[in-house]
């Protein structure tokens, strides 16, 4: 399973990954609409992104969350009813939600952010 891995020591908080993710999927450069987040922490930083643990699958009543053939957790927007339980119960706070959308969103390990990270801080 391809899970996005982070080499945090290499990250310089340039925000390229957030920009790439949000513009690709939400057609807007907005950190709030990116699946990957660079957050300040203890004077340094933390990259927060889904680790594909699958807890959201267990708590979803509508079976809108499933693993695909590669093991990546995907949301079926046709089945999702926007209850946001997956957002509240995500152990790493990596299931995203924005009030502009009824369906949450998450990292699907597409690798586009890896390509734009010049520091090599993201690896698939």
């Amino acid at each position, binding site marked *: 399973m391809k899970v996005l891995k982070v080499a945090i020591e290499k990250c310089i908080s340039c925000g390229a990954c957030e920009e790439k993710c949000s513009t690709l999927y939400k057609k807007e450069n907005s950190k709030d609409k990116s699946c990957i987040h660079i957050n300040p922490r203890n004077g340094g930083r933390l990259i927060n992104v889904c680790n594909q643990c699958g807890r959201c699958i*267990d*708590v979803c*009543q*509508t*079976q809108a969350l499933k693993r695909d053939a590669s093991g990546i957790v995907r949301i079926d927007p046709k089945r*999702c*009813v*926007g*209850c*946001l*339980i997956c*957002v*509240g*119960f995500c152990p790493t706070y990596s299931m995203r*939600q924005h*009030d502009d959308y*009824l*369906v949450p969103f998450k990292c699907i390990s597409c690798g586009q952010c890896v390509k734009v990270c010049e520091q090599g801080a993201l690896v698939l």
Partner: protein
Amino acid sequence: MQIEKMLSEHKLLKEFKYDLKPIEKGYSNRTLYINLSDNTIESKPVTQFMKDKFVGGKGFGLYKLWNAVKPDTKWDDPENEIIMAPGPVCGITQYPGSGKTLVVSISPLTDQVIDSNVGGYVGPFIKFSGWDAVEIQGKAERDVIVIIDGNDGTVRIEEAPLEAIDGHVLGEQLTEMYAKDEDDRRNIAVVTAGTAAENTLIGLLNFTFFDTRRKKARLKQAGRGGIGTVFRNKNVKGVVVRFAGTNGNMNNVDDISPINAAGIRIHKQIDKLDDQQCRMRQIGTANIVEVMDAYDLLPTHNYQYGSHKDTVKINSHTFIKNYLKQNTPDGCWYGCSLSCAKAADDFVLESGPYKGDKVLVDGPEYETAAGCGSNIGLFDAHAILELNFYCDTYGIDTISFGTLTAFLMECYERGIINKEITGGLELTFGNKWAAYDLIHQMSRGEGFGKIAGQGIKRMKVLFAEQYGADINFLNDIGMEQKGLEYSEYMSKESLAQQGGYGLTNKGPQHDEAWLIFMDMVNNQIPTFEDKAEALHYFPMFRTWFGLCGFCKLPWNDTTPESNATADEPAKMPEHVQNYINIFNGVTGLNIDGTELIRQSERVYNFQRIFNIRLGKGLRVHDATPYRSAGPVTKEEYLSREERYDGQLVELIGLDPTSMSLEEKIAETRKYRENQYEMLTDAVYKRRGWTMNGVPTIEKLKDLGIDLPELLEVVKKHL
């Protein structure tokens, strides 16, 4: 039986087509009227007046019923209605417990207004289909089903002779029948009653939701007050609602942001804290079986005692270990992270027409574990689930069944009734086979089950008139008030809870106020004024859930961390603010905590006046059986002798050492009955009622509900 065969016997009596249109800020702005006597189906507008004065849900139900019936209407008159109404918030998916429907009718048990709160997908789907309420009046000639298709915009009445009546069978049949394909079953929700609902007065309505994990229709109950009996009396077999396309903003809310924020915040809280708090996700409401036992509050042997050495056999851990093994928390509407719905899978029945079948049992709720368990002396988890299953599928209320069976068992053990009277049923405490026989007789409408199914109020009269029983003693031990059986808490040692049961609109159901811990355990409301304030605020606050379409459980069965420093922790201020934010977010209104209570007060007072109009609703009707307030018998007194003797000294100033047991019981009774009267005075005053329990004209004016038809009713009593 094949679905095709059943369908081939359907006869379409009426089809009604309507325009589909979006919901506006929580309201569909029309209600559906169905008359089964002449097959009328109509759309009626929701007026601004209705929204302003009644909000929705139970408020709309009461308003519709008021306009449908006369002061002398009885439960089985054709003009009596069953109104099913989701409130304006009902159907949001972001906050736990937001899919409730309120069902209103004139009750066969109480002969006054009953309201019952139920989960499942029926209410949300009614709203999404375009209706703020469904109003069913009249009586069909033969068994019918009503089908509301919210995608096609049709309502149909069809004769349906071949379908089952029992809920667990009919729920599956109608789900399969009206789903377009297998996946569409999640878009079907069904209302059923059951065979015992038509032979007793304690009938309930099952509301289904399709469980996509188990691939089964689950049953949630509008249990209280016999509405299932009215349903079958109208010859309705089932109501089907189909709606495909649920999403996160069906209500077209005014502002979704506060709703999302409140939802995510409480989801996180429940995830973090529920395992250490109420364990609703693990076991649901039955988490408190052992807690009630530990505090001497678990009704045992017809409310004589509050604990039992064998409670360990029916505690929450026993149910989890042996029956609720799947560990998949289920909500009865989308977004319910508290997920108290529980199921025992592949449960093998040991009695009755379905003996040997492997079935799914929805439950047990705490009330069922206590009512069909400790209260009838049955410390047997399997037997509780067996009775739970049969109550549900036969369409009768587990609370009324448990409480009336407990009454019968005490009568039997005291020799008030015997085997000759019961037709051979040996109704001793703990005799599960007798309890099974009783419920199967209710289903068949035979034998002593038919008598028992009339409820405690009518049985008391029957036993006195026909078998020479002492009516005063029966009135003391028969745990009913207004005709409704008590729910399953011991209120003897909590005066506030005696009022929480007795000073209610519909009868002794704990959904208005549950004050035992505040009062008895934590001593937070010591004076009459404190208790009266609690018996004003909490019933009004909790009424509001039923106006909006909320469930009460996520209010205080999960506690926010902020409660540790809150001024009034019993009110759960953070959660109250969530509710205000959500209501305003949905409707675009701007209510605060004060207006929230006033919204409820309007409806609460309206319901009180409705009862007065039906010849009830006065102080005399708020009197309670003495067992709810104190020890009736020697055995009860002796079981808590130290406590009661101590109270004689400290509260009454008597010396118990110089008194006989009879004298001690009599003095305790005199004191406690007087306390209840003083509490009643204080509560009526706080609620703005006369000492006869009648809302005053000033109060109605203050609330803006001084409507001529209400004044006409109250003026006769002022």
